[in-house]
């Protein structure tokens, strides 16, 4: 497999996808996108950008499968345990004090973030007191998450270590079963979750969320898309609501930084100003 893909080739692939499927990747971080295209080409045994472009134009690509492979799903269960401790100890008690509060997991990929949140809510006995909405652009992925995520055991070991650092209430093994070396999370955790294909970069808002998780999603976007997504996220937050980014992301490069204040600078938790 080739280890590099030039800018020209990358742009050809972006144009072909937009032509055929109406999906625009031109605002993705080029460096990351180049690597993702190479990865997908490897999976599909496609040896060059020209062949990929031709296959796309002939509609020889299963686009759902392509999107699924293109997505970065290497988060972890309870990635950044200290963030989850803070969510448990400070954020959720406040949010759940008013009934019917809504929490949004935007840009779900593997479901590990979603299952982490649902485990926290379960352990706090709050599973039924909040409405959790999860958005994921890939139906293949939503189906997989609804079947329990289906995680390789190596990833579960990592999740278990994180859960221990998070100081969860139980043994982590309580939350999953193993079959053929894959872990299936307990799907009763997510039975009240509302799934949709809402795309944060395009769609309108409903201004009603008390907390939005958007961790390590915008690192895949270039500046204009990052700005647009942050504006959309702002429109979806109620006053005083929490926005949680990845721990090496920042709002400082955006106009919206004026409309939020920092609640925790290490965990990258922000709150919307009044």
């Amino acid at each position, binding site marked *: 497999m080739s280890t590099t893909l030039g800018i020209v080739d990358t742009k050809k692939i972006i144009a072909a996808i937009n032509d055929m499927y109406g999906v625009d990747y031109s605002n993705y971080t080029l460096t990351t996108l180049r690597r993702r295209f190479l990865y997908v080409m490897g999976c599909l045994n496609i040896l060059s950008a020209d062949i990929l472009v031709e296959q796309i134009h002939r509609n020889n690509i299963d686009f759902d499968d392509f999107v699924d492979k293109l997505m*970065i799903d290497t988060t972890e269960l309870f990635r950044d345990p200290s963030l989850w401790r803070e969510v448990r100890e400070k954020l959720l008690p406040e949010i759940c004090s008013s009934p019917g509060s809504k929490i949004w997991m935007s840009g779900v990929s593997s479901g590990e973030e979603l299952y982490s949140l649902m485990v926290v809510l379960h352990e706090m006995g709050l599973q039924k007191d909040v409405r959790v909405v999860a958005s994921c652009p890939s139906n293949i992925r939503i189906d997989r998450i609804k079947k329990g995520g289906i995680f390789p055991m190596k990833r579960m070991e990592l999740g278990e270590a994180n859960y221990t650092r998070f100081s969860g209430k139980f043994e982590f093994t309580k939350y999953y079963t193993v079959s053929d070396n894959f872990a299936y999370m307990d799907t009763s955790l997510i039975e009240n979750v509302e799934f949709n294909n809402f795309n944060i970069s395009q769609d309108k808002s409903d201004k009603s969320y008390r907390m939005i998780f958007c961790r390590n999603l915008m690192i895949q976007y270039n500046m204009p898309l990052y700005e647009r997504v942050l504006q959309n996220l702002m429109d979806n937050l109620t006053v005083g609501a929490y926005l949680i980014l990845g*721990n*090496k992301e*920042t709002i400082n490069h955006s106009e919206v930084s004026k409309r939020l204040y920092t609640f925790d600078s290490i965990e990258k938790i922000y709150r919307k100003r009044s």
Partner: protein
Amino acid sequence: MSNYKAIMIGGSAGSFQVVTKIVASLPKDYPLPVMLCLHRLKHVRSGFVEALSIKSQMPIIEPDDKDPIKSGRIYLAPANYHMYVELGNKFALSTEDVVNHSRPAIDLSFFTAAYNYKNKLVGIILSGANKDGALGLKSVKDAGGLTIVQDPNECQVPTMTLASMNATNVDHVFSTQKIINFLLNLA
């Protein structure tokens, strides 16, 4: 004034003391950005910058995503992210899968820096126990950049430098002191 625009250093087992010596030797107003991609525990986010900063005159920063790359600063790849150089001299962080069992992976930082800086990059590989960084250093060489490895005889663990020397025809094999002298001469 040198022709180079950036320095990238990769290291793993046995490189901490070498890196500490290097950063301690660079003056506060060093005119180039210095990027460090060092293997580190994925779940330990704090402490590393603090330890390196003790003797450094230059500020050492773990960049946030999309931060611009500026001269006179030392950047350390943060825990559990790959650190890419995006066109336009910005950082792009990534949570893509581990490469060579590592995140951050040295190869990926070097690939992206070589692509961005071409022949204006100095790539340096230090002591380490696996081959991560070898293909990265090759990409620096192939893009016309300058390549240096720490003298394997001096390395606590020479696997990484030897793998790099196998992967490409490196320009210099230097002791720590010679690496420092070289970097100071670029100023």
